[in-house]
């Protein structure tokens, strides 16, 4: 029985002692594909796992929240977190290390990416205005049953960056195969037109001229992820992760997007302090 009342939480992976930092670091090899034109794959080599849980408040890998209710089956919290959409625009991108090229220079494409069903020429992210990080706040509800958990969350931009909204419906199921502990999580995320347009739309701010303008549209992005861990010792564990996220046409039609999916993979070992 993985899911019991909060006060009787005794699962070694899902549960954590209150009022103590839970620190871990994973070393391995992996990456997250970048759907943007000229966007580099985000390398995953060192992954931290940082969490602190009080009686109600918590910090969990960049998310700061307060759980108002948790009686085991039903739980509800509000939270604030960094919007990760911006990561595609900056992570290890050469423009972070070299002087960016001036505007109005559009790469001439040698081919049209097969995933993009638009007539506009692809636009490199080197040639558009920078996008800002956003901070979101939201609420999440959990419904837990045996080894399964259904979650519904909503978050909105509180940094006045894109004024968008994100709704995620996810189901996760935990099971064991031999010594491996496996979490499989299908999900569907809806992103509003505001957030898609802010990050993937092309407007006059990008200085590319009227012919390159594009307005992002809202849509659902289904995804599935699988994470498997296997203990090596009390402190060490094997860690495998893979995920596939399908991007909706309101985003992939953008000239700065040339893939309709985001694929993530990581294989390594984790150390729990």
């Amino acid at each position: 029985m993985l899911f019991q009342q909060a006060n009787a939480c005794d699962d070694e992976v899902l549960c954590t002692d209150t009022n103590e930092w839970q620190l871990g670091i994973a070393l391995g090899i992996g990456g997250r594909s970048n759907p943007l034109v000229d966007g580099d794959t985000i390398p995953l080599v060192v992954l931290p796992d940082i969490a602190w849980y009080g009686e109600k408040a918590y910090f969990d890998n960049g998310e700061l929240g307060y759980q108002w209710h948790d009686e085991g089956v039903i739980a509800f919290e509000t939270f604030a977190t960094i919007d990760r959409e911006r990561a595609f625009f900056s992570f290890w991108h050469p423009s972070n290390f070299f002087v960016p090229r001036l505007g109005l220079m559009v790469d001439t494409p040698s081919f049209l990416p097969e995933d993009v069903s638009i007539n506009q020429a692809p636009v490199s992210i080197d040639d558009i205005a920078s996008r800002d990080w956003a901070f979101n706040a939201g609420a999440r509800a959990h419904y837990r049953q045996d080894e399964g958990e259904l979650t519904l969350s909503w978050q909105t931009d509180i940094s006045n960056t894109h004024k968008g909204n994100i709704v995620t419906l996810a189901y996760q199921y935990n099971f064991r195969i031999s010594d491996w502990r496996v979490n499989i999580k299908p999900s569907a995320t809806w992103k509003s037109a505001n957030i898609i347009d802010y990050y993937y739309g092309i407007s006059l701010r990008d200085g590319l001229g009227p012919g390159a303008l594009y307005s992002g549209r809202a849509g659902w992005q289904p995804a599935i992820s699988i994470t498997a861990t296997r203990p090596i010792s009390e402190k060490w564990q094997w860690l495998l992760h893979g995920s596939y996220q399908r991007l909706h046409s309101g985003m992939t039609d953008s000239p700065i997007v040339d893939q309709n999916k985001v694929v993530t993979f990581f294989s390594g070992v984790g150390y729990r302090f």
Partner: protein
Amino acid sequence: MMRLGIGTLLLLLMSPTSIKAAPAWVVRPNICLADKASDICTMTITIEAKSLQSNQKYCLFLGETLIDCWIGARTPSEVNVRLDADKTLMLVDNANQVVLSETLEVKARYKQKTRRRIRQPWSLF
């Protein structure tokens, strides 16, 4: 009447030497109080053993860890122990038989509360 009286007297006179009492011990304390259940608990225990054989070799184990060995009826009077969980203190004789045992328990002074993590561990993916 006289024969029964002499027989009873003989039995009483023989009992202290010819009938061996079973070994016994008193281990105190046998509960170690830690602040939290996850803490290592240390304490000094006293052992008072009775009726051990004077020519026998005995060894004292805490779980699978050997603490001390000696010959004779006199046990170590004080022993420092470190416990990360409940463990059994055992007195083992030369034939590797457990003569006496006592469970040393670890109890938490403050019950550590746990919570279910809201996000999956390593959820920076």
